[in-house]
């Protein structure tokens, strides 16, 4: 009898803990988003998103974050485009070209897992050494290259996940029609997995746009909107990071505005991704 009571208490206790930690997670997300909103909304204005910093900006005078917003978009877009040129062939290599060579495919997955685990600051340091080695200055280009390397494993993983699910019979029937590897890869698999590829791209875009550590070394920071790949550029996370460190409240509050803009971008990406993958799972055959 005692034992039974003890068991019931134990069961209830852990049930309570489990419930609490699940609730905590939801509360946490709300809490983070609400705090960012609460701090960011008051300092968010049309000026913030439509102007670059003007003279005296860093002492609290006028100007906005347009340089960082545009810079971030350039950076993430560039990185994703380059990333696509590497990640798409790579995932196709694993699932079409070399699908019969299990050893090679496993080796690729292994290397990608390794790369996936490497922290972005190490990519930043690596990008920096390459930059020095090639004699490039800090620039949008250097940032794009570094970020593209950093998001590569993220993109491949997302695409590989989807391509793995392409039924073997589909591949076989395509091959038996006399298609070349390339045709099967790009006309059949890539097309079938298009929403998955988009998901991977969006995911990587989100990662790329939010990361500081990889670009800290490589993009520099400027108040101007970059006009060429060789210009330095500001990014949103860097804007948050630098301005939060300022002792001037007006500047700090702009950090919050930048944080809010960044959060909104990330949330938007998340919503779009969700929408796409929902549609995808509805239409694809399981």
């Amino acid at each position, binding site marked *: 009898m005692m034992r039974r009571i003890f068991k019931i208490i134990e069961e209830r206790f852990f049930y309570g803990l489990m419930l609490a930690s699940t609730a905590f997670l939801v509360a946490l997300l709300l809490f*983070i988003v609400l705090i960012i909103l609460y701090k960011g909304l008051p300092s968010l204005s049309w000026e913030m998103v439509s102007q670059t910093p003007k003279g005296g900006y860093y002492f609290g005078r006028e100007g906005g974050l347009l340089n960082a917003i545009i810079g971030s978009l350039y950076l993430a877009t560039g990185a994703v485009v380059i990333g696509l040129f590497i990640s798409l062939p790579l995932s196709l290599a694993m699932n079409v070209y070399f699908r019969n060579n299990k050893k090679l495919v496993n080796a690729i997955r292994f290397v990608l897992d390794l790369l996936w685990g490497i922290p972005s600051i190490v990519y930043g340091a690596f990008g920096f050494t390459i930059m020095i080695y090639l004699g490039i200055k800090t620039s949008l280009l250097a940032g794009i290259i570094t970020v593209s390397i950093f998001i590569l494993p993220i993109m491949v993983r997302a695409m590989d996940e989807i391509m793995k699910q392409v039924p073997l019979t589909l591949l076989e029937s395509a091959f038996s029609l006399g298609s070349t590897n390339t045709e099967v890869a790009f006309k059949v698999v890539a097309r079938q997995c298009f929403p998955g590829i988009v998901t991977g791209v969006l995911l990587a875009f989100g990662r790329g746009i939010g990361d500081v550590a990889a670009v800290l070394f490589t993009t520099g920071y400027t108040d101007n909107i970059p006009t060429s790949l060789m210009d330095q550029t500001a990014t949103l996370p860097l804007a948050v990071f630098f301005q939060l460190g300022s002792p001037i409240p007006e500047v700090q509050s702009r950090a919050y505005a930048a944080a809010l803009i960044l959060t909104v971008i990330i949330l938007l990406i998340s919503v779009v991704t969700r929408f796409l993958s929902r549609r995808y799972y509805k239409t694809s055959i399981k």
Partner: protein
Amino acid sequence: MYLKARKIKDRISGGWVQLVLVFVFVLPLGILASLLYKSWLIMQTTGIGDLLFSSVWRPLAGEFGFFPFIISSIWVTILGLLITAPICLFTAIYLTYYGSNRLSVFMRPVIDILAGIPSVIYGVWGVLIIIPFTGRFLAPLFGYESTGFSIMAGGLVLAIMLIPFILNILIEIFRTVPVEQYEASLSLGATQWESIKHVVVRRSFPGIVSAFALGLSRAFGETIAVLMVVGNVVGVPENLFQPGYPLPALIANNYGEMLSIPMFDSALMFAALILLVVVVFFNLLSRFVIIYLEKRQ
């Protein structure tokens, strides 16, 4: 003619695919080589032992002892992992074994969004919430005085950032436990919790260990969010409420002066090398734990 064009297309894209393959295998080696190459100088002049275990950090005098940074990194990482572990385990179990399908559907985006929030945002939030919480509440609670910028704050922010990362892996792992085993345990008269404790957790043990190893390696390299709340004061912290200065923060804070002080760039690349080695080590470890323990089961 048409056939030939197709063949050529196949050649070209096949060639690109091969090039990309080579690139992927060369990349990790390239990263390792470049960091080794850059930090070679300081390893030669100071010696690895001194670098790792000396606490004297005077870049201008050419003295680089990484011990304070390494210790800070270890503290923050372990603390973060300890705080996050129970939350992740309980939530993962709840979602797989107790919660309804509807709850899972609801929680999916919650976890995904938490995972997608950039670390600089966690940093801002940490400065706004965790810092005062640690400084005004936690530290006095344990009888310390603290500005809030401390190892503890770093650990807390890290813990929160790790939740979605580890949770996702754990849910995946619990999903693979066969229902039959769980049902078998229940039909022997075990309660739900007992079945989870003795069967589910036990069966997924290798997976759990490897999830935490992956979390650890993620935590060790996390830069900006931790940097923003940890205080960044060089020195071996004596308690959790003192500021610390983890390795990634060291690199991120000093890239500006890197080229103006002799050997400094080499020293920072050495720090990056330590990060790389530790992170790769734990990644490999998590892999082997799974393979080894699963063989034994």
